[in-house]
C-alpha cells in the first residue's frame, strides 16, 4: 500500500501558497478549494514552480482588474457544461449585465459592485453557509457596505439611509430579529445579480409576489386607476419602501390626508377603516393580557389562546381587504375578530370574579375565627370560675 503514500508525495502540486500563505487560508475556506479550483484558474501562471519569475509567467494575469472580474467568473459560471454537476444557474452574468451595477461598469465606472464585492475573492462560500456574506440574513449588511456609505452614494444621488430604514422596518425586524425565513432581504425585491430599483409600474408586481391578496383588492379599487393616471407608485405611495411599518401604521399616521382633504369622503373612509382596525387590535391585545393574567393565578385558559389566534387571523384577513377601500367588505372580518377577542375577555372576567369571591370568603372566615377565639376565651373563664 505504500505506493499510495508515494503517489501522494510526488503528485504535482500548486506551490503558490508557499509565498502566499494568507491567501491559502482564505482559499481553503471556500467552495472553490473543495472542488479543486486552484490559484491558476483565476490568476494564470505556473503553479508548480517555486521560482517567482517562472511562476509568474505564461498566462499569468496577477490581480484581475475590477472591470474584468465579471467576465472572468463567467468563464466558468456561464458555462452550462461546467455548472451542470453543481446544479447552479448560468444566467448570473447575463443578469448582471442588465443590472444597475453591470451597466455602470460597462460605462467604465469601476466603483460599482462586481462579483467579489458580494461573494468575496478567495473565500467564496456557498449561499447556504451562515458565514457567507450572501447568506439570507447577511445580505442587508453586505449591500450596506456600499449603500450605507454616504460619501459613495452621494455621487449617484442615492440615499445612504436605506440600510437603517430597512433594519427598523417590519421586514427587517422579521428577518434580523425574529429569524423569519419568509421575510424579504434586499435581493427579494431588487433582484440578485440583476439588481436594480423596481420601476414605478413594477412596485405592485414586486410587492404582490408575497402580498398577492392585497394586490388583488387594490387593483379592483378606485386607487388603481387614479394613481396610475397620476404616475404614483402604487404600494410605496402609502407604505413607503425601505422603512415600511407593520400593517395599519400608515392609517394611524394619517397617510390619507397626504392626498385627500381632511373631512372629505375619502378621508372619512380612511378614518372609518382606522377605527375598525384599532378597536379590533385593542380588544385582541387586551384579551392577550387577560390570558397572561389568568395563567399566573392560574385559571383554566382552555382554548382561549386558540380562539384569540383565530381572531388574529380574521384581523389578518381584514388587512388586504382594506385595500378595496370598501368599509362594508372590511367590517364583517374585523367584527368577527373583535367579537372573538371580546368573548375570550368576557369568559376570563367571569372566572376572575370567581377568584374575587375568595376575598368575600375570607371575611366570612375571619368572622368564624373570631367566633372560635371568643368561645375559647369564654370556656377558659368558665373553667376558672368552677
Amino acid at each position, binding site marked *: 500500500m505504500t505506493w499510495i503514500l508515494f503517489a501522494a508525495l510526488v503528485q504535482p502540486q500548486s506551490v503558490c501558497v508557499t509565498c502566499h500563505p494568507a491567501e491559502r487560508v482564505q482559499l481553503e475556506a471556500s467552495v472553490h478549494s473543495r472542488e479543486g479550483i486552484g490559484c491558476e484558474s483565476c490568476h494564470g501562471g505556473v503553479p508548480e514552480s517555486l521560482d517567482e519569475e517562472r511562476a509568474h509567467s505564461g498566462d499569468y494575469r496577477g490581480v484581475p482588474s475590477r472591470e474584468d472580474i465579471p467576465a472572468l467568473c463567467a468563464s466558468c459560471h456561464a458555462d452550462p457544461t461546467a455548472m451542470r454537476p453543481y446544479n447552479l444557474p448560468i444566467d448570473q452574468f447575463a443578469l448582471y449585465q442588465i443590472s444597475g451595477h453591470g451597466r455602470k461598469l460597462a460605462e467604465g465606472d469601476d466603483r460599482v459592485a462586481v462579483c467579489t464585492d458580494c461573494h468575496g475573492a478567495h473565500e467564496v462560500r456557498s449561499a447556504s453557509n451562515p458565514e457567507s456574506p450572501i447568506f439570507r440574513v447577511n445580505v442587508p449588511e453586505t449591500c450596506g457596505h456600499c449603500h450605507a456609505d454616504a460619501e459613495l452614494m452621494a455621487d449617484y444621488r442615492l440615499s445612504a439611509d436605506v440600510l437603517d430604514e430597512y433594519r427598523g422596518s417590519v421586514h427587517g425586524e422579521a428577518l434580523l430579529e425574529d429569524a423569519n425565513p419568509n421575510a424579504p432581504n434586499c435581493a427579494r425585491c431588487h433582484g440578485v445579480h440583476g439588481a436594480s430599483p423596481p420601476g414605478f409600474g413594477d412596485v405592485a408586481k414586486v410587492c404582490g409576489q408575497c402580498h398577492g391578496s392585497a394586490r388583488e383588492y387594490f387593483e379592483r379599487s378606485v386607487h388603481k386607476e387614479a394613481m396610475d393616471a397620476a404616475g404614483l407608485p402604487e404600494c410605496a405611495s402609502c407604505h413607503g419602501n425601505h422603512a415600511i411599518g407593520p400593517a395599519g401604521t400608515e392609517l394611524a399616521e394619517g397617510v390619507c390626508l397626504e392626498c385627500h382633504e381632511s373631512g372629505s369622503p375619502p378621508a372619512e373612509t380612511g378614518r372609518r377603516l382606522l377605527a375598525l382596525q384599532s378597536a379590533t387590535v385593542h380588544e385582541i391585545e387586551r384579551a392577550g393580557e387577560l390570558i397572561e393574567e389568568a395563567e399566573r*393565578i*392560574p385559571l383554566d385558559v382552555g382554548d382561549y389562546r386558540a380562539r384569540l389566534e383565530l381572531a388574529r387571523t380574521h384581523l389578518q384577513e381584514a388587512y388586504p381587504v382594506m385595500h378595496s377601500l370598501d368599509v362594508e367588505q372590511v367590517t364583517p372580518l374585523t367584527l368577527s375578530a373583535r367579537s372573538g377577542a371580546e368573548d375570550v375577555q368576557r369568559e376570563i372576567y367571569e372566572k376572575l370574579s370567581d377568584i374575587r369571591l375568595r376575598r368575600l370568603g*375570607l371575611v366570612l*372566615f*375571619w368572622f368564624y*375565627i373570631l367566633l*372560635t377565639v371568643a368561645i*375559647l376565651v369564654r370556656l*377558659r373563664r368558665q373553667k376558672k370560675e368552677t
Partner: protein
Amino acid sequence: MMSDKPEQTRGAHGRGALLDWFEARVNLTEFFALLTSLGLFYVEVDTKKPLRLAVREALAKPVSSYAEWPRVLGPLAVLFFLFQVVSGVLLAFYYRASPSEAYESIRFILRDVNFGWLIHQTHRWGGQLLVAILILRIVRFFFGGVYKKPRELLWISGALLLLLAMHADLTGRLLTWNQISYWSTVRGAELIFTLPLIGPLLGFLVGGQEIGAATLSRFYILHILILPAAVFVLLYFNFATVRRVGLTEAASPTNVGGRRQYRDYLYNLATLVVLIVGVLVSLAVIQPVPFYPEIDLLSTPVEVQPPWYLLAPHVLVDVLLGRLPDLLKGTLFLASVVLLVLWPFVDRSPGKTMRERATVVTIGTLAFLLWVVLTIYGVALQNIGAP
C-alpha cells in the same frame, strides 16, 4: 381530684371502657409524655400513672414561668412545623417529582384540585413564617442571653433549626419547577459549588453540578423526608434541654411559682392555632404567590433573586463586595454560618445580663441592624430591578 383508681369508678361504660381496654394493653401515658416533649407542654409526666390521671395532674400543675404567655416562639414554631407537615402531606398526594410532570402537577393542584390553591399557598406562606419565627427566636435568645452556660445546646439546636427550616424552604422552592425557582436554584448552586468542602458535598447531594432530574428527586426526598425528620429530632432535643435548664435563671425547675395552670396554657395554644390558620389563609388569599411560567433553559430571567432571608448576605456579598473572588466570598459566608451555630462558645463575656455583655450586645445590635438595613436595601434593589 376525683379518684386515684379510674379503672374501678368509670370502667363500666362508654369511652372510659375503651380507654381502659387500651390502658390494660399499652402504656398510653408514654405517648402523652412524648407529646409534652414537643414544647406543647413543659411539664414532667409520670409514666407510671394511668393516662387520665396523668393528664389531669398535668393540666392542674402551675405553668412554669418560662412558658408564660408571651414566650411562645418555640411552641409557635412547633405549630407551624405541624401545619407544614399536614399541608405538605396533602400536597404530596398530587405532586409528582419528575421534570416532565412537576410543573403540570403544580398547575393541577393550583387550578383543578378543590382548595388545592389554598393548601399550596398556605404551605408556601407557612414556610416563610416558620423561618421568620425561628429568626425572631434566635434574636430573642441573643438579647436575653439564652446561650450562656448551661443553655449552649438550646442556642445551638435553635440555630440548627433555623438553618434546617431555610433548607426546607429552598428545596421546596425548586419543587415548583418553574422558570423563577429553577434559575434561582441554579444561581445559588453555582456559588455553593465554588465552596471548599461544602461544594463537593452539595454536588453529591443534588446529583452532579447540573440542576436536573436527579436534583429534583433528591430535593424532593430532602424536603419531604430527611429535613422534616431532622427538624423533628431537633425540636425534641430543643425542648428536652428547655425542660432540664429552663429559659431563664428565675425559672429553674425549683422555682415554678407560676400563677396559672396548664389548662389555661392549653386554651392559649388552641387560640394560637386558630389565629395561625386565620393568618395563613388571609395571606394565601390576599397575597398569593404567582404561578410562574415554565422553565426556559435558553433564557435566564432578570428578576431572579434570593429569598428574603438571604437578601442581606446577597447584597453584602454580591453587590457590595462583588469584586472578591468566589472562593473568598463563599468561605466568608460559610464562616458566618459556623459562627452563628457555635456562638455560645465564642462569647466569653462574664455574665448574661446586658451590662455584663455590653460589648457583645453592642456588636450584636449593630449586626442585626445591618441585617435589617441590607434586607431593606435588597428589597429596594429588587423593586428597581438592579443586579
